[in-house]
């Protein structure tokens, strides 16, 4: 995967396959500790202890179309290659929590990339699943919640192309702001 936001998309796809109705994606970056924590929490069907052990094995998959499942191993590897850590917790019938901590000063750290494109793709393809994005950089925080969008858009499906495009731009601008990016208002 070229960038972390693609790994995140892959991990959230697991949540969607596990029939989650709510998936929370949390990124917490600390510029003093040089760490980025990525957590994905879902309320899907979860895994048994046995499945949980196998999930980290690339030659295991719960799917039936092929014999390998690379999503979790790739994400784990991406974190561990930076000197970071990976953990996965799951309760059968309740949901799954995956956390990876990256050392951002490692040469092996790959950029987060287009997280806005990840979230907009998820919203377009899964309008009946709710997604929360909590992104914090030091003391700044941005929270995006499709439940809030749905309340505002009312009868217009959140997967309408216009809304999806808007969501993409909205997240991109707000995430840029977390890193001290220039806003439209400051430009004019």
């Amino acid at each position: 995967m070229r960038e972390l936001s693609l790994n995140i998309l892959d991990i959230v796809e697991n949540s969607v396959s596990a029939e989650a109705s709510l998936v929370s994606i949390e990124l917490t970056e600390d510029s003093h500790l040089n760490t980025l924590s990525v957590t994905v929490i879902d309320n899907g069907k979860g895994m048994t202890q046995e499945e949980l052990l196998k999930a980290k094995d690339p030659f295991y998959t719960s799917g039936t179309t092929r014999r390998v499942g690379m999503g979790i191993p790739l994400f784990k590897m991406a974190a561990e290659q930076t000197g970071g850590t990976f953990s996965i917790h799951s309760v059968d019938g309740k949901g799954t929590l995956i956390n990876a901590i990256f050392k951002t000063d490692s040469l092996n750290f790959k950029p987060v990339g287009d997280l806005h494109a990840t979230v907009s793709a998820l919203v377009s393809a899964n309008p009946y699943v709710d997604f929360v994005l909590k992104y914090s950089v030091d003391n700044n925080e941005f929270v995006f919640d499709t439940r809030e969008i749905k309340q505002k858009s009312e009868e217009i499906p959140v997967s309408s192309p216009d809304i999806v495009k808007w969501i993409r731009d909205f997240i991109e601008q707000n995430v840029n702001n977390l890193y001290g990016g220039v806003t439209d208002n400051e430009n004019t």
Partner: protein
Amino acid sequence: MKTLEELLAIKSVTKKTMLVREDIGDDKIKIVVGMGTCGIAAGARDVLNAFVDGVAEKELTNVAVTQMGCIDMCKYEPIVEVTVPGKEKVTYVNMTAEKAAKVIEEHIAGGEPVSEYIK
């Protein structure tokens, strides 16, 4: 800076173009992008977003852009299946954002599948 209030403006425009058409129903053209690990690694996210942009740009109201898992043709990812109601499903392989724009133009809006992208 984008605000949530902007959504209300988009909403009123979108509502006009939607007319009375309901979200569900088999009368919609379906664009289904493979979003397994293989698809994502090959660039499916940008392909999906390119289809969303194309549909929005052309103001097509009868199109749904959605996803599927791995269909065991990983080397042909990103794979996109297009189903026009009443017609046979068309499977595009090795897709890119640029190719998506052409599929929107010629197939989704124009009705003619782009044969060069079909395996």
